[in-house]
């Protein structure tokens, strides 16, 4: 049996007057008064954003300034409130990044819908979308809070890249096959 019967001791006379408890409580509150406040005075002081914090989802570029998103639309698929909407597009064959072939023509995140679950970041195969440390958004209209691609890149900035997958791909392309 997981239940445990607790014996309730009858209150002593002192306890019945309630006074010792009051004094005990007052001792605690008095001690508290001399502790430093825990308040974070928000707009003046900024919180330390801990590692792994899930702020506003943003699009990032790699250190070479290449937009990382290839509009695979996995984030759009996984997003529980369907906050993301992507119009995929093809990269022009003349472009520097022609070997990536695909990039979003339009990329919208409706910040009013986003629930900051971070699924998009987790699912992204290109490590292109990150929930970074921005936590306060405001706007005057609903439309304003549907962030477009340029805004998302502006918020996201550049993050270090571990793989340089596409750069290596191009190197391989330039090197060609040993066979030929």
């Amino acid at each position: 049996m997981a239940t445990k019967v607790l014996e309730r001791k009858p209150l002593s006379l002192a306890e019945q007057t309630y006074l010792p408890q009051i004094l005990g409580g007052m001792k605690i509150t008095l001690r508290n008064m001399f502790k430093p406040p825990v308040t974070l005075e928000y707009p003046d002081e900024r919180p330390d954003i801990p590692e792994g914090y899930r702020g506003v989802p943003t699009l990032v570029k790699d250190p070479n300034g290449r937009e990382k998103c290839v509009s695979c639309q996995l984030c759009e698929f996984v997003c529980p409130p369907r906050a993301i909407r992507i119009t995929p597009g093809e990269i022009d064959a003349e472009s520097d990044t022609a070997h990536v072939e695909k990039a979003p023509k339009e990329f919208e995140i409706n910040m009013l819908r986003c629930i900051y679950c971070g699924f998009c970041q987790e699912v992204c195969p290109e490590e292109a979308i990150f929930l970074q440390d921005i936590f306060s958004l405001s706007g005057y209209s609903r439309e304003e809070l549907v962030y477009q691609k340029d805004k998302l890149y502006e918020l996201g900035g550049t993050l270090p890249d571990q793989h340089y997958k596409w750069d290596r791909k191009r190197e391989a392309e330039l090197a060609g096959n040993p066979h030929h």
Partner: protein
Amino acid sequence: MSTMSDDNKQDTVTIYVDDQPVEVPAGINLVEAVAVAGKEVPHYCYHPKLSVVGNCRMCLVEMGTPGRDRATGEPMLDEEGNPKIMWVPKPVIGCATNVSPGMHVKTESSLVKDCREGVMEFLLVNHPLDCPICDQAGECRLQEFATDYGRGYSRFVEQKNVKPKRTRIGPRVTLDDERCILCSRCIRFCEEVADDPVLGFIDRGSYTTLTTFPGKELDNNYSLNTVDICPVGALTSTDFRFKMRVWFLKETPSIDTESSVGCNTVVGSREGTIYRITPRRNDAVNDTWMPDSGRTLYRQVDADDRMTQYSIEGRPCAAEEALTLASTYLRNGRSAIVASGRLSVEEQYLLTRIASHAPGETPAWLVARHAEGDGKLLSADRNPNVRGALVTGLIDRIPEAQLSQLSAALESGKVENLIVVGEDITQAGISIDQIKKANVVYIGAVHCDTAQYAKVEIPLLTVFEKAGSFINQQFRVQKFAQAVPGPKGVLFGLSNFTQLLAAVSDGKDRIEPSPAAVWTEMAAAIDEFKELSFSAIPSTGQLIPADRFADLPFVEGKSLHFEPRTAVADA
């Protein structure tokens, strides 16, 4: 097993898949047989409608047959008296092994698993990390089998091969050679089905590359089927490329309206927009193929000349107003109907019902659309549903391209009111002056000259926006479902027709605007449809008796799964 020896002579045999007995049709291969047992043999190069080449080795399984004593020919038995299984010492490829009675197959043994892991590893060695930009992702056999049967991590640290990417090999097909797993399905398709062998491999080993023969292009009208059968994203449709991920697409069964073949299709749409049309397997009609030309038909939904507004003499009006005026015409004076072979059976039937309420004789015509058939999946009759009009009794002859009778009748004033459904009669020998003479009600999906001079315009839904059925050249009733909602303001489903019917009959003849309700009526009225209902039509269609029309000179020639009646064809 006692029944074993009998099986030899029958069209099914019993085999043992992982020790479970399964009865399968005789003569099929192990990939299909194991599928009957509800299990899967992963495969790339095998395609049920193409020849077997056995070059991908993904379908390796362990196989054994009951042994026979060489001397006596008697079955060998083990200690317990069961047949002794002589296992083939090495794994065999399932696609090239046909079933035989008593055959044993292991699809889950550790040897088989090792084989699959090995094959997957080799396939992935040079495979690019393209899934995020690959159109096949989500319906890619390589992805699926890599998760199901792959080892889960890569041991390959060297640089991957480089091959041509983003290559145009035809007007509608783009090739990415790095993704090709050299299964040769596309090559075989071009040879065996499309009769246009233009694809082949060059170079050897891991440098093998798919390409077109010098100076050739993959430009036949069946080229996009290679995209469908390519198990990976090597061949992609230039039209669909990068437009939408397949996992977003809602798949709706539909019918290709290009010709009376009636290819079964799947319409992929998302949020009311159609992105692509692909074939749906129907072994009695189109196997797994369809012509390229049928895949762009979805564009009519958003066509520039799409008509979406009810109007009277060019003035926009409410649907009820237009339909009431049309019914007023029909009830006063002599009327005639020009219907279309592109309407569904239900719509054609409702037109006969509407005509029956008009005073006097109400003749009806269809406009023929004839072109040369290609002997495969495009027949000479480019109307998908002429037989529907015959069966429902709307017409009783094979339609002609020119409406000379109607022209005369209009000229002489014998026809005062004309209902035109889905056809531009100015293209069929009717002059604009003649149209102006009569009260023309135009029901159609597009603006055309007829609409321009009609008194009443009523917008019509395209095949993607409604449900219904067609009857193809084999007299096979085939259903199609609604893929996307119709344009704003257009009455849904069959409402245009049922409301017109109700108005013409003074509210007496009312039918729900759904195919199911119309089918209930049709089953009662039409012999061929007896005992049939809309929901009872299987997804592969239902053949109906065609004897009533045996003497009609249909124009279709031979095509896939279709032989014209020789008597008629010769006549």
